[in-house]
């Protein structure tokens, strides 16, 4: 053998290259194989070239990354300085350096973005069901499996002899114990996995280009040090240090001799040291804190939980400071990471910046994007965080306030929200970062969640929440938060400490503490096809915010954040006031409710001579969405189905919008309850699409019909009883809120009924009011509200009043009307459906006046709307008027005969406070700008108003004449004082009171006054049997109107002092008002009724039968009184060419014969009385009566005038 120099036939290296002797068998043994391998000479690699990583692919195992990572960590720590000279990094060092960087990147992600990290355990076994894990050997399994390449099983196979190292070391050797590892994801992208030899290693392929990780460049993690700021680096230092200390736990659990982890420890130390030096050098101003707190992280499973899971506690002092050491040993443990939502399961919801929320009420998280635009999000706090920050939530969102802050940046490209919670821990601001996916980046949440009322107080018990994102719908939903137990703020928890939600309370344990319920629901099965859905909650304790959730694929929805009510706000008008402490002493007041046919008014009075109507303010507060009270467009559903947003200065309409029957939780109960049973409607911008006999239809929700019940009071059918209850209860709720807001509490509820209302209906109303008081008690007080009872006593002191009584009470106490001994006051209250006529004279006693007679007549303002309903020309005229004057009444664009009544009221409401506009309307009627419109029809409206008012004044003349000649009054000094003449004061009230203005506005004052005076005198002098005809009886004639309190007279009258009017003991019942009626009594005796005889119910029952109508003659109808009125009226028509009066000629003579009986017997009240009488068989149960004269007038108007004018 040669002794010459020899060289190894090996890859170039510095270990066994030369100098060995020849071997006897031509082969040498390598004693230190690792030394040789590590000393192989390799060129420097250009690590910026992506192909270089292909070297990793040369390692013949899919586990190469795990394996090479452990190699890389065993290599020396390659510093940033060394990396600056890549040409000096020989051989594999470049690759190892790159792998070290990846390792650092992986750890940095865990440190900084823990909330975006998810971990998934993968058991490396075949999924085949045929495998018997207890009995099959590995070879059996290989034989059995369907696809030997099945990834999990196949990769497990490739561990070969190492499989045990990757298995669960806690199991017995006999147990089925397949290898497993845990995938580490960032934003759901797999970035690495656990490995027993290096703890973790990066994935072969991970694309984080969408994740905005600063140190992810060209396909892999780079050394993060140069990319991060000092705060972030400090956090990494703390994380890596903690990790290093936890490696021990891992090692002891594993128990195997993993010397390799020594290199991991060393590496971690070097990493920490390098970061610290970098911070010192690059951020000299930065104050580095040697101790820090890490994000709570519990996602890894055994055994890597021992090293990667972080649960660093901090401690909270009693005064709310955070410390990282338990200095006194008994401080409360606290984990700051748990203060924010879990970013793995939650994505935050973006709120529409313009309309999504109310900045004065709702706490939301603002976040600027790259372009500087601000976006808003629900607060990503956890239940624990809510609890922790609730008292200072506003300060938390203000970085300049307090020692903690919650800030966020929105990454519009990746549609993620980067949230930073900074806490001052041991005098050092410590940030915690989380990154959330945004649930709805392309469609910011713009829904409405509304609270009512706009205050909270311990002694207020009725809170409502309306939500257009029902808690049980698919997608984004809203769940209300309740105040803490016994408080008006905070967030209520259940017994397990979770946030309390009513629908999750399967056993309604809450009922012990408070009552809350969903009263209007969303039922997916029933309503999923609807274009829009909503739900309404009631609660006895305040709502303090909302939780937003989103549907997920799993059973539970994910929380998307919270919106809390601000405790203090810049604009009190938009926030919810906290009345705790200043509502303990409430002033008791009397409350009057005038539930009118068209309008309802409430008033109050107290002992301090305060007497006012109750203005219903908009007490809605949007926690999501914004109040958009634009009357130019049709009302939004939230404006219709919840408390109203129009402030009502005088009265509200007696109209109720139903919720769809399917939406009411318990219709049997709910229908009569406030809000659930319907919502009083104040809106005038309704999208009315039609009407039926009893209700209107509107399209409040697209493609869905909503019913609106109007003229509620006169709906006699039993089925409407619940609606009336619901309406009045809601009104009562409004009233209570208004009173409570002004530190008042109702003591007495005073109410009234129309004079013409039958007794049974009055009784019904009394019952309704009592039920209202029994069920709606929002104010917790020791005062029980009394209801004034129905009573037949004359004294008005403590009983329900008729509307006439109330009006009189109003007129004389507050209305500015005085009655002297030579004065007669005629009060005319023209309502929506009925009108009352009152005659008052001076009372010689202590009262200011004496009520001598009272008539109720079903002729009122509704006649106008009937006309409008019939007349296309009128409707066109009105539309034109609305458009020209920009009245914001879009509903009127679609006025039809079905909707005319409701809409006419709307129109008149708009005009009632604007005299100029009113005159303009009459002028328009008189002389329509559109010449194609039939003037007969437009002016016909003026003719109708003149007819109604004239007829009532004519009847007043009859009544006064009757009073003066009534023998019963012979001893009445006050009456006698008037025999020679009197001053007549006519006071119109009520919504129809305005009708007296029409003529004046349309023609002129002189004509108007003359007309009414003539009507009065005609009535006064109409009786043929009374002499003398006295044209001079009137010392003066005046019509006194007080528009200020228009429509509120009854209400005011209810709450006005009751000691101003005395009802005359002999107050006359309604008179016949016409000559020639004959009544066949029970004895079949024909008794001719005089015009001033009282008319009684039994006679009206027999109208046209035993009560024989006078027959017509050659000239006229034979109704002498009526003919006199007609003459006056037609003179006016003829003189001013109001319409073609010849139209009436042919049908006037026989109208009574042909129509009157039928007309009377179609009166709703007549029918109701007759029905009751039929049922009971008791004649006395027919209680309804009305002057036959007034019936004649009403019949003529309806059947002759209106029909003839509006033939079309």
């Amino acid at each position, binding site marked *: 053998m040669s002794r010459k120099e020899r060289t190894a036939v090996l890859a170039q290296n510095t270990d066994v290259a030369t100098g060995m002797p020849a071997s006897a068998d*031509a*082969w040498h043994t390598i004693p230190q194989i690792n030394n040789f391998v590590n000393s192989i000479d390799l060129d420097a690699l250009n690590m910026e070239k992506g192909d270089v990583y292909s070297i990793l692919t040369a390692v013949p195992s899919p586990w190469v990354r795990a394996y090479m990572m452990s190699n890389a960590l065993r290599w020396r720590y390659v510093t940033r300085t060394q990396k600056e000279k890549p040409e000096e990094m020989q051989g594999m060092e470049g690759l190892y350096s790159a792998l070290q960087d990846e390792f650092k990147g992986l750890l940095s992600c865990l440190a900084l973005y823990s909330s975006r990290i998810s971990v998934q355990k993968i058991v490396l076994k075949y999924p085949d069901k045929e495998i018997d894990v207890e009995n099959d050997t590995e070879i*059996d399994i290989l034989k059995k499996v369907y696809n030997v390449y099945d990834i999990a099983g196949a990769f497990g196979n490739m561990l*070969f002899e190492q499989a045990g190292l990757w298995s669960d070391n806690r199991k017995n050797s006999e147990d089925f114990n397949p290898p497993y590892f845990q995938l580490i994801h960032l934003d759901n992208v797999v970035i690495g996995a656990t490995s027993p030899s290096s703890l973790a290693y990066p994935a072969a392929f991970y694309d984080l280009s969408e994740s905005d990780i600063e140190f992810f460049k060209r396909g892999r993690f780079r050394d993060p040090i140069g990319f991060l700021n000092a705060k972030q680096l400090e956090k990494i230092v703390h994380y890596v240090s903690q990790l290093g200390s936890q490696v021990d736990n891992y090692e002891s659990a594993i128990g195997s001799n993993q010397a390799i982890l020594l290199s991991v420890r060393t590496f971690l130390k070097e990493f920490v040291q390098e970061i610290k030096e970098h911070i010192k050098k690059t951020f000299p101003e930065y104050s580095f804190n040697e101790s820090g707190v890490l994000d709570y992280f519990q996602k890894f499973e055994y055994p890597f939980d021992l090293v990667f899971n972080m649960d660093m506690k901090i401690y909270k002092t009693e005064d709310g400071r955070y410390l990282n050491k338990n200095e006194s040993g008994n401080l409360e443990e606290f984990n700051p990471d748990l203060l924010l939502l879990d970013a793995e399961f939650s994505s935050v919801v973006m709120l529409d910046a313009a309309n999504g929320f109310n900045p004065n009420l709702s706490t939301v998280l603002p976040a600027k994007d790259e372009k500087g635009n601000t976006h808003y999000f629900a607060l990503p706090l956890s239940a624990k965080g809510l609890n922790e920050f609730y008292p200072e939530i506003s300060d938390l969102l203000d970085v300049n306030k307090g020692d903690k802050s919650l800030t966020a940046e929105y990454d519009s490209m990746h549609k993620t929200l980067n949230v930073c919670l900074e806490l001052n821990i041991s005098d050092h601001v410590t940030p915690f970062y989380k990154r959330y996916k945004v649930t709805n980046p392309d469609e910011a949440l713009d829904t409405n969640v509304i609270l009512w009322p706009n205050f909270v107080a311990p002694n207020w018990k009725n809170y409502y929440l309306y939500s257009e994102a029902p808690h049980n719908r698919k997608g984004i939903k809203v769940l209300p938060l309740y105040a803490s137990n016994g408080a008006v703020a905070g967030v209520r928890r259940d017994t397990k400490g979770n946030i309390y939600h009513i629908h999750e309370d399967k056993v309604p344990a809450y009922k012990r503490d408070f009552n809350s319920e969903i009263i209007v629901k969303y039922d997916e099965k029933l309503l999923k096809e609807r274009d829009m859905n909503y739900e309404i909650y009631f609660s006895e304790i305040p709502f303090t915010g909302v939780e937003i959730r989103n549907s997920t694929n799993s059973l539970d929805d994910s929380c998307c954040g919270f919106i809390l009510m601000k405790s203090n706000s810049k604009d009190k008008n938009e926030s919810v006031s906290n009345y705790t402490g200043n509502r303990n002493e409430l002033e008791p007041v009397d409350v009057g409710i005038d539930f009118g046919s068209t309008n309802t008014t409430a008033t109050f009075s107290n002992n301090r001579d305060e007497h006012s109507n109750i203005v219903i303010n908009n007490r809605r507060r949007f926690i999501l969405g914004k109040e958009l009270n634009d009357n130019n467009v049709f009302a939004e559903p939230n404006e219709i189905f919840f408390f109203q947003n129009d402030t009502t200065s005088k009265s509200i309409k007696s109209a109720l919008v139903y919720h769809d029957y399917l939406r009411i939780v318990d219709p049997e109960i709910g229908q009569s309850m406030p809000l659930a049973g319907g919502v009083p409607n104040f809106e005038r911008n309704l999208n009315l699409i039609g009407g039926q006999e009893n209700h209107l239809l509107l399209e409040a929700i697209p493609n869905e019909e909503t019913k609106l019940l109007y003229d509620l009071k006169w709906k006699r059918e039993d089925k409407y009883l619940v609606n009336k209850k619901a309406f009045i209860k809601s009104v009562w709720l409004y009233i209570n809120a208004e009173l409570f807001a002004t530190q008042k509490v109702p003591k007495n509820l005073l109410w009234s009924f129309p004079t013409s209302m039958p007794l049974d209906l009055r009784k019904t109303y009394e019952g309704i009011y009592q039920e209202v008081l029994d069920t709606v008690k929002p104010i917790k007080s020791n005062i029980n509200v009394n209801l004034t009872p129905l009573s037949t006593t004359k004294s008005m002191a403590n009983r329900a009043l008729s509307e006439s009584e109330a009006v009189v009470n109003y007129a004389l106490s507050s209305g500015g009307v005085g009655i002297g001994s030579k004065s007669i006051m005629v009060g005319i209250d023209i309502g929506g459906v009925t009108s009352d006529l009152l005659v008052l004279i001076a009372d010689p006693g202590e009262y200011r006046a004496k009520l001598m007679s009272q008539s109720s007549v079903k002729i009122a303002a509704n006649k106008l709307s009937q006309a409008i309903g019939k007349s296309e020309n009128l409707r066109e005229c009105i539309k034109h008027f609305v458009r020209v004057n920009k009245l914001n009444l879009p509903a009127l664009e679609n006025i039809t005969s079905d909707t005319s009544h409701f809409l006419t009221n709307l129109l008149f409401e708009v005009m009632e406070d604007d005299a100029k506009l009113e005159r303009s309307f009459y002028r328009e009627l008189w002389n329509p700008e559109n010449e194609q419109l039939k003037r007969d029809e437009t002016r016909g409206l003026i003719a109708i108003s003149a007819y109604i008012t004239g007829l009532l004044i004519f009847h007043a003349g009859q009544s006064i004449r009757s009073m003066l000649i009534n023998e019963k009054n012979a001893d009445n000094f006050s009456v006698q004082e008037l025999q020679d003449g009197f001053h007549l004061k006519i006071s119109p009230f009520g919504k129809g009171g305005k009708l007296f203005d029409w003529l004046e506005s349309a023609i002129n004052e002189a004509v108007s006054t003359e007309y009414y005076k003539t009507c009065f005198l005609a009535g006064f002098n109409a009786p043929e049997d009374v002499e003398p005809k006295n044209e001079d009886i009137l010392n003066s004639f005046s019509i006194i109107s007080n528009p200020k309190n228009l429509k509120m007279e009854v209400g005011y009258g209810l709450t006005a002092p009751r000691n101003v009017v005395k009802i005359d003991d002999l107050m006359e019942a309604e008179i016949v008002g016409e000559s020639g009626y004959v009544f066949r009594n029970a004895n079949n005796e024909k008794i001719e009724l005089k015009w001033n005889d009282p008319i009684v119910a039994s006679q009206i029952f027999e109208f046209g039968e035993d009560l024989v109508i006078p027959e017509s003659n050659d000239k006229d109808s034979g109704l002498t009184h009526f003919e006199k009125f007609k003459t006056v009226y037609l003179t006016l028509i003829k003189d001013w060419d109001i319409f073609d009066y010849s139209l009436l000629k042919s049908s006037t003579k026989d109208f009574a014969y042909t129509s009157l009986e039928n007309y009377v017997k179609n009166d709703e009240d007549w029918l109701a009385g007759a029905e009751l009488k039929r049922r009971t068989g008791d004649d006395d149960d027919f209680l309804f009566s009305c002057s036959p004269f007034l019936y004649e007038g009403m019949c003529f108007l309806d059947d002759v005038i209106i029909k003839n004018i509006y033939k079309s």
Partner: protein
Amino acid sequence: MSKFFLVAAGGTGMRCLQSFVQMCALGMYPNRNISILLLETDEQNKDKKNTENLLKWYKDIQSSGVDRKQAAVDKMTTDGAASIPSDNSSLVGGFFSANIDLYTFVPDYSKDDTRNFVVLSQVERGNSEVNHKLANIFYEEPVQEFPLAHGYRARTHLGSYLMYHAMIEDIRKAMSDDKYIGKSQLLKFIQQVQKASASGGARVFALGSTFGGTGASSIPVITRAITDSCKILTGDMIQMENIYYGGVVLSAYFKFSPPSDAHKKKDKIVAQSEFFKHNSASALMYYVNDPTILQTYKKLYLLGWGGDGFDWCDTDMYKKKYLSNDEEAKTATGGKNQENPCHLIELFGAFAAKHFFEEQSTSQKSLDNILSTEFKYKSLEVSGKSDSKNPIVHWEDLFSLPSPNTDKNVKSVSEEIQENFAGLICLSAIINSYYDKSLNKFLDVLKRYNMFFEIDDIQEEAVSDYLSTFYSKENPNGVKEIPGWIKQLYLTFHGEMNTPREMFFGLNGDVLEADNDGISWWQLFNLGKDEKSSANRFIETMRKQYKPSGKNAQGLGDFLDLLRATVKNTTIINTLRN
């Protein structure tokens, strides 16, 4: 007595196998049965084709000596292992004296459901989300999807996974499919191993590179693949302790031009020789640390081509110079264009197998005592100084035995190797040069000297093809000869100018120069002053060794034996020896 099994995987494995077959042809395994499993992923691979051709000719040539071969087998069977003589000469025998059984396994990656990793692993089946994540953890995105039809393209982290499971799958399929069981050559090979392990032991030796695709992928897993396959065959009832694994770990030793950007763009995954060195190194790191390798391989023979004077062969230069076809000079990811020149290191690899196989160099007892892989390496003498060092390879560097009682009258194994090499070179060159590339002409001349051999056309053709592959053949594309195996080995050292000729076994460079058609063959021997007189001397020597066999004409085997005996009795010039 152990039986020999060889696994050759991938392009380098194929060329190592070519060396191994040449060794068999040169008499290195006299009368031994050797089962060879050829593993390839690329059906079209030229190296594979060349190897298969070589084996075919080998078998054709060998068919002439059926009786002789059978006699040897009978002898082995009756005498058993103990009767094998331990003297050196028993390790070298006559030409084509080993019996080779070839088994081929090529996973079929041409089908729609096998064409790449993603479909093969049925990533979309079951929990596809998890499957994709796992895929991403292990494999880069392009790796997951590149077509496997041309092999693993140096992606051994994928290849090892695929090859292991491909073999397991083939055995599973054979075991469960009666139609397939007869077709599976892998199954037959495994059955042979299993049988041998149950009777005397099986020595399985793996040949392949650490830096390429198929070989580098297969070598690390072949031990478990074979053992697990045996277990599947036996229903996991039998321990497989008597399978002894050895293998070569070949580090990078050749280079080719980096692929163009367009090529990379088109194929996405392309083997790049610029990383071969690093690939080899990283693979080596794995080999020396991986518990599976350390526990399953008894011996691994590390070979590399580093250090001063170990110049790498530029395959592009070779192709350009000798194959003269531009198309073929381009980087090939595989396929019919992947044909690299043979290299001395491959011969070393083949001799590593011999070292592992032979009881004399690796005793069964020593194998049983190895608990963790023993790593071996080879050294060569170097001449020259500093910058101009030249490695020199001697015959004893191929195979030698420690022989304390060497009888000077008994030739050493290396001497016998030398003689056999010289014999085949001589035969090739003399036919190539002196007898117009025609064996028949040579035989006709011999007839004149009353040496009669009956060789049929198939054999004649096989010999011609074999010898041209061994020595050189005409280049159909150009004027130059295409160097044969031995000349390609010679080029390992002499591909560069101005390197000493004597580096290669001391053989005369004139004989082995690529352009030389063999005219200088006589310079290998101390025969005469020119080719003609030397040829006469050679035939004369043959005649003296010729032993007539009565009436029957002698066959090709006899002819080769005669040739060998002639060489043995001819002085070989080897100036560098000693």
